[in-house]
């Protein structure tokens, strides 16, 4: 029997619980700073405190939203608990001119792009399908159909190429796109086609996959029998696995991948190896399909705790700092609770708006017919 080469599943994985030997890490779960031959970099105290702040506030957005859902104020909420470092690391690596294509869980990246979290709450409350202006933040609307946005990101990156905003060396001009998606999404045709188009056109796009080990109840093993970052090999561009619970490493790797794209060297796949600590969404019940042991093990790798240890141990932040962040989080929580409840319900007739840039007569008639119908209930409704 000829040898087809080593068993790739044995060589590459299956995904080791600690992320395996290829995992890029700069800060261990214990808060120890380690170094990496390729992706090391210095971080100022200010940067580190900034990461900490972003992660704490992002987590607060998440816990407030979860609570609001429990109280019936939101229809559903997609929790990011445990994925704060992956999102803040990626979000902070962006420049203003870069463009983000998020999933429905990118609350931390939205935060980095200056999107008011109330917009996110509005969507999950059912007030609208997304109310921020993508152009104001270079942050697209949440995409719910799994994987669709990977192609949008690639096309947007092709647009950047056509605008001559790649590889000019101009720091403020050269731009990249980041496409967020999950481990489950890696199985969709659209995501793989995005790899193909991006490779074919050498488009300036970073594919940022948060491998949180689960796609609702399906474990990562159902989607790939080798570590996901290796997928890129098959398409002819680099893939990197980074500790997605390590904000420093995620920042460094994403930043390097974005820079590569901006310089015109094409796409990169970044696999942020992390864990979905919560349920898939507030309607999910993970006890049906996973062991609490796993969750416990991952608690030890909390993305925020390790930064706090590092800041404290190295005298980069004091109690006042932590207290001030705590206060800021409390304020934010308060603002979100109040703001969410105060979000006005859309007017019934507004549902007819924006179907088209140029409304059709047909639709105008439907709107008018419904308006007339509603008037017959005058007062009753």
């Amino acid at each position, binding site marked *: 029997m000829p040898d087809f080469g080593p068993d790739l599943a044995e060589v590459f994985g299956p995904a080791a619980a600690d992320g395996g030997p290829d995992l890029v890490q700069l800060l261990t779960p214990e808060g120890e700073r380690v170094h990496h031959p390729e992706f090391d970099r210095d971080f100022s105290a200010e940067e580190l405190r900034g990461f900490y702040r972003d992660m704490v506030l992002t987590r607060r957005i998440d816990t407030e939203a979860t609570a609001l859902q429990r109280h019936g104020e939101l229809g*559903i909420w997609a929790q990011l608990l445990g994925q704060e470092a992956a999102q803040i690391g990626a979000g902070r690596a962006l420049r203003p001119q870069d463009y983000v294509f998020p999933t429905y869980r990118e609350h931390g990246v939205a935060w980095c792009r200056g999107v008011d979290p109330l917009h996110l709450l509005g969507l999950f409350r*059912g007030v609208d399908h997304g109310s921020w202006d993508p152009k104001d933040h270079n942050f697209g609307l949440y995409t719910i*159909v799994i994987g669709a946005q990977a192609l949008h990101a690639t096309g947007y990156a092709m647009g950047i190429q056509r605008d001559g905003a790649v590889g000019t060396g101009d720091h403020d001009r050269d731009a990249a796109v980041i496409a967020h998606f999950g481990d489950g999404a890696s199985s969709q045709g659209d995501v793989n086609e995005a790899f193909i188009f991006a490779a074919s056109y050498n488009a300036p796009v970073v594919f940022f996959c948060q491998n949180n080990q689960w796609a609702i109840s399906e474990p990562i093993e159902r989607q790939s029998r080798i570590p996901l970052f290796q997928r890129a090999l098959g398409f002819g561009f680099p893939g990197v696995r980074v500790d997605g619970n390590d904000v420093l490493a995620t920042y460094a790797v994403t930043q390097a991948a974005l820079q590569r794209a901006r310089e015109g060297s094409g796409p990169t796949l970044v696999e942020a190896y992390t864990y979905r600590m919560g349920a898939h969404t507030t309607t999910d019940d993970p006890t049906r399909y996973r062991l609490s042991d796993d969750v416990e093990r991952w608690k030890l790798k909390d993305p925020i705790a390790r930064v706090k240890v590092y800041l404290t141990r190295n005298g980069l932040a004091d109690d006042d700092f932590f207290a001030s962040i705590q206060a800021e989080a409390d304020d934010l929580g308060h603002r979100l609770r109040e703001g969410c409840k105060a979000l006005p319900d859309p007017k019934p007739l507004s549902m007819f708006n924006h179907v088209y840039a140029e409304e059709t007569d047909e639709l105008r008639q439907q709107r008018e017919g419904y308006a007339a119908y509603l008037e017959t209930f005058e007062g009753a409704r």
Partner: protein
Amino acid sequence: MSSTRTQRITLAKGLNMGLRKAMEDDPKVLIMGEDVGKLGGVFRITDGLQKDFGEDRVIDSPLAESGIVGTAVGLALRGYRPVVEIQFDGFVYPAYDQIVAQVAKMHYRSQGRSPMPMVIRIPFGGGIGAVEHHSESPEAQFAHTPGLKVVACSNPVDGYWMIQQAIASDDPVIFLEPKRQYHADKADLDDSMAPDPLFSSRVVRRGSDATLLAYGPTVKTAMKAAEAAATEGRSLEVIDLRTLSPLDMGPVFDSVRRTGRAIITHEAHVNLGVGAEVAARVQEECFYSLESPVLRVCGFDIPYPASRIEEDFLPDLDRVLDAVDRSLEF
């Protein structure tokens, strides 16, 4: 699991029991989809089935709808009878090509040599307060495609029987389940009672002034409308279409010939929805019986709106009664 004679069940339970029965009856029946295994599906319709029938028969899939339906085609060619679960209506579209170009055409292409005994279950319709893509009604697009059959259940007892009949069918069946009803009203299942044929519509309330046509989630709306109308002395006949392709127009024509008026209600967009076809056929067959035009009370021609105003999008009792008035006053 043919337990007690009569049981009080929800639609979710009826479907679950029906699936179980089908799997017991025929070892070739497989269930495939996202999260159908341990989780039992996001709506728990396949609850407990993987535990009892194993991972080879209740197959958790990678996250790719075209992949699910496409591999189901291969399994059907090998002699299996796959029952595919699409998690939500809005996620059937990545599988659209496999459904309309392969599933629908294989029997025809092969001159009957390669049947496609596949069921594609789609929880459909709105009213559950969900975000985008979770409340759609894609039935017209499938009903327009020759080679597919399309049915919609509206109650627990039909759920139990129709899913078994669909699985037993040698043709591919798009099986629509009104997700809003999954855990709502209960009904008595007496499984010693023979069910109606799968591809038949059913008069669910007798009446003489006008005919209300509905399917899936709007059957309940239509029934309520008929009750409300009755209090005002109006007698409405209600027909649960049940099968959308083929349509079973016999009972509809009979009814319209008696009442002279027809109103159809569905959640799908009115433009080119099933109501258009029903209206086209009724005006053709009952031309001289019609005393007023066939009216449609349907979803508007807008993308499904944000859930806080979805009740304005969805046809409801008042809109149906308004149409009844317009029909009677025409």
